[in-house]
C-alpha cells in the first residue's frame, strides 16, 4: 500500500490488542499487529509468513491449536479425532460466574468445542497422533474433556503403533471441574506410561505458557521434550510463588531457557525449526522402534 493511501485509510481502521499482552496500546486489526515484546508494528501478512514470529525481535506470538497442527503436520494429512467431544459442567460450578457460561463464551470465541484438537497425521512422513492445545479456550486448562481427548489420543497411538506428538499450552487444571480435573493428571500420565511400555515414541513441545497440572502430567513425560523460545514453563504460578516466598522472582525464571539450563528440557527450538526437528527425532525413534534394527 502506498504510504499516502495508508494515511488516508488510517482513520477507517479498527484498532485492537493482539497477543494477550497487558499493554492496551492500539493496533490495527487484521492489517497491522503490534509485538508484545518489542512494541513494533508488523504487517499481518509478514507475521503470517513468519508463522507469527516477530521479524524484529523473534518474539513468538501465540498460535491457535489449528495453526499449531498446520505448522507441524504434513499438509493435508490431519484427520481429527473426537471433534464433538465437549466439556459439561459436572459440579454445576458457579463462583463469580457459572462455568457453563465460560464454556459457552469460549466456544463462541474460538469456534472450538474444547481447548485441544487431536487427531492422526504424518510428520515428515512418520505416522503420528498429534494434539495441540488452544490457550484462548479458558486458558487451555485441563478438565475432563481435555484429559479424555489426550488419553484417547495416546491410546490411539498405542493401538495403531504411531508416535505421539503433543504441543502444549495451558494454565493448568480446570478448577471449575474440581477434583475431576485433578484426576486427569493421573489419567493422562497413566496413558503416557502405557505408550512408553509399548516402546512407542512420544515427543512434546511446550509453548507459552505451560503450567500447573498439564506440566505436571503428560507434558513433561515425553521421551524428548522441546520448548519454544521464552515459553513460560513451570508448576506453580509466579504470583503464588512470590506470595509464598515474599521476594521478587529472578529474571528469566521459569523461561524455557532457564528450564533448559536446569536440565528439564532437551532443547529450545525456534518455531520455524520445530516441524523439521520433531520429524528428525522421529527418524531416530520411530524408525528404530518399528524396524528393530539394533535389537
Amino acid at each position, binding site marked *: 500500500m502506498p504510504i499516502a493511501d495508508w494515511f488516508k485509510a488510517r482513520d477507517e481502521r479498527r484498532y485492537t490488542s493482539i497477543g494477550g499482552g497487558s499493554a492496551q496500546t492500539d493496533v490495527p486489526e487484521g492489517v497491522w499487529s503490534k509485538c508484545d515484546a518489542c512494541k513494533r508494528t508488523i504487517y499481518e501478512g509478514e507475521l503470517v509468513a513468519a508463522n507469527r514470529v516477530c521479524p524484529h525481535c523473534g518474539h513468538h506470538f501465540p498460535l491457535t491449536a489449528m495453526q499449531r497442527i498446520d505448522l507441524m503436520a504434513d499438509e493435508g494429512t490431519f484427520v481429527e479425532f473426537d471433534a464433538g467431544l465437549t466439556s459439561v459442567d459436572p459440579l454445576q460450578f458457579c463462583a463469580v460466574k457459572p462455568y457453563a457460561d465460560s464454556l459457552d463464551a469460549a466456544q463462541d470465541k474460538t469456534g472450538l468445542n474444547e481447548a485441544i484438537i487431536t487427531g492422526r497425521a504424518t510428520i515428515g512422513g512418520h505416522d503420528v497422533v498429534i494434539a495441540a492445545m488452544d490457550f484462548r479456550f479458558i486458558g487451555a486448562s485441563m478438565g475432563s474433556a481435555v484429559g479424555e481427548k489426550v488419553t484417547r489420543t495416546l491410546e490411539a497411538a498405542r493401538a495403531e503403533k504411531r508416535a505421539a506428538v503433543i504441543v502444549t499450552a495451558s494454565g493448568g487444571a480446570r478448577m471449575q471441574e474440581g477434583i475431576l480435573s485433578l*484426576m486427569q493428571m*493421573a489419567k493422562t500420565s497413566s496413558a503416557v506410561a502405557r505408550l512408553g511400555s509399548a516402546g512407542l515414541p512420544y515427543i512434546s513441545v511446550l509453548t507459552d505458557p505451560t503450567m500447573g497440572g498439564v506440566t505436571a502430567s503428560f507434558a513433561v513425560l515425553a521421551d524428548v521434550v522441546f520448548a519454544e523460545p521464552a515459553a513460560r514453563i513451570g508448576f506453580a504460578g509466579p504470583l503464588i510463588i512470590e506470595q509464598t516466598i515474599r521476594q521478587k522472582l529472578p529474571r528469566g525464571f521459569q523461561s524455557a531457557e532457564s528450564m533448559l539450563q536446569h536440565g528439564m528440557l532437551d532443547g529450545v527450538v525456534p518455531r520455524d525449526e520445530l516441524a523439521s526437528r520433531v520429524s528428525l527425532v522421529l527418524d531416530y525413534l520411530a524408525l528404530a522402534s518399528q524396524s528393530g534394527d539394533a535389537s
Partner: protein
Amino acid sequence: MSRKYVMEFERPLIELEEQLVALRRIDLSDNPDLMIEVSALASEIDRLRIETYGHLTPWERVQVARHPDRPKVQDYLAAIFSDVIELHGDRLYGDDAAIVAALATLDGRRMVVLGHRKGSNTKENIKRNFGSPHPEGFRKAMRAMRLADKFGLPIVSFMDTKGAHPGIDAEERGQAWAIAESLALLSELHVPIVTVGIGEGGSGGALAIGMGDRLIMLENSYYSVISPEACASILYKDSARAADVAEPLKMTAGDLLDLGVSDETIPEPLGGAHQDPEAVFSAVSERISSAVGSLVVIDDDELVERRYKRHRAIGVFEEGA
C-alpha cells in the same frame, strides 16, 4: 496452661464452654435460680455442640482438616504400625523432611508407608516445610515405590499437604517433572496402593503420592484441584473469600464419594479427629487392613489394569456429533 487452638466457627461454643467451667467453679448450693441457669447453659452448650459440629460446611471442614492437633502421619505410624524403619533420601539431591517413606507393619503385614509429613509443632513445621514437598520429596517417595514394587510390598500412602512447595528452588529442580514421573510410576506398580486422606489434599502435590487402587477419606479431610484460597484469589481477587469457593469446588470427603473419586469415608468423632485420635486410629487401621487385604489377592497384571481403568474412567464430558 496454654490456650488451646480455636477454629473460628467453634468460637461461640468454646466461649460458652469456658463460661460454664467458670460458673461451675462457684459454689451455687444456696442459689437455686443460678443452678437452674447453669443447667440450662449446659443444655444449650450440648445443643450448640451438635449444631456447630454436626453439619460442618465445606469451609469448616477445611479448618478441621488443618487443625494443628489433628493426627498426622507420624501419629498413625506410632499408633497403628510396628517395626517402622524410615527410609531416607532420593539418592540425587536431598532428604525432604516433608515426605516420610518407611517400611512398616500393620496387623502383621509388611508394607511401605508414604506420607506428607507436617510437623507436630512450629519448629518441626519449619523443618518439614509444613508438609509441602520439594521435588526431592517426591523422588524419595518414588524410590520407596520402586522398592515396594521390587519386593512385592503393598503401599499405604497418607495424604496431608497443602500442596507441593511453590518456590524458586522447587521449580528449578523440576517440581512438575517430579510429580508427573511419580504419577507415571504409580500407574505401573505391580503392588496394591491404598491412599488415606487424613487431612489436606492439595492438588498435584497430594496426588503425586495419592494415586492408587483405593482412596479412603477421613470425614473432614479434603482433596482439591486447588486450595480454596488460591481459587478465591483467582476468581474474586481475594483469597479471604476462600469460604465462598470451598463448596462449589466439591472438595469434601462426601463430595469425593459422590463423584466416585474416593471409595469410602471414615466418620470422625464429633468436632474432628483430634477430639478422639484413638478412635480414628482404630478405624483407619481396620480400613487399611481390609483394603490391602482385598487387593493383595489380585493378580499383579490385573491390578495394574484395574488401576488404569479406575483413573481412565474419571471425568464427565459429552460426545458430540
